[in-house]
């Protein structure tokens, strides 16, 4: 059975400081999937005031428990002074799910990776 996974990639400045963090989620973000990624998502996004791109292009299923996890991380990041941008690509079901719950109005969502970088660093 397909489960969820999480990986990250940091873009560094010349001095080694983190300029941008890319966090990629994939698979099914249902009750089981969120259990697998929630702790790491929090540790990657909610500890330092970084620009973060949350890449959901490989997410096949996003349940409300997954949305709650994303909101919690985005809120914690915001309180630290960081900023989250969601990268969706052409993921129509995930896009519709986020729009139906109004999340697109409080966390920026884009389809293009370069746009996501520009928005995260703005």
């Amino acid at each position: 059975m397909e489960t969820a996974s999480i990986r990250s990639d940091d873009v560094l400045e010349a001095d080694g400081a983190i300029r941008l963090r890319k966090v990629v989620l994939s698979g099914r973000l249902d009750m089981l999937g969120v259990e697998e990624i929630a702790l790491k998502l929090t540790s990657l996004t909610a500890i330092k005031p970084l620009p973060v791109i949350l890449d959901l292009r490989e997410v096949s299923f996003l349940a409300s428990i997954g949305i709650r996890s994303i909101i919690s991380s985005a809120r914690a990041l915001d309180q630290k002074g960081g900023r989250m941008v969601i990268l969706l690509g052409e993921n129509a079901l995930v896009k519709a799910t986020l729009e139906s719950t109004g999340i697109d109005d409080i966390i920026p969502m884009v389809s293009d990776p370069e746009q996501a970088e520009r928005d995260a660093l703005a």
Partner: protein
Amino acid sequence: MRPPGRAPGPTGKLELCLNEVLANLLEQGGAAESDHPVELTLELVDSGDRGLARLTIRDAGPAFDPLSVSRGPLPRTLGEAEPGGLGLLLVMQFMDERSYAREGERNVLKLGIHWPKGP
């Protein structure tokens, strides 16, 4: 700028809403659900130029109409975003037909979604 994306199909929406209803039963139902299995029925109805998939979920938990739960307006800021109630919001947004009845000792929730037929 929001991503363009294709319209999501009815299958994905129905699966998502079923997941939300079952997750809610697990969270709210407690012991009653482990004693009495949840019964699912899927009907496919041909109604002329479109089809209808109707999912019926019967459970033996305490009487509860999830469709009667009211929710406030959508959040405008991250601080306003409430963690609860999102699953029901998805059901209300994605399903074309929704009904609830208490039949004997069971909750009966029906969810339906249309899809256009090809040429």
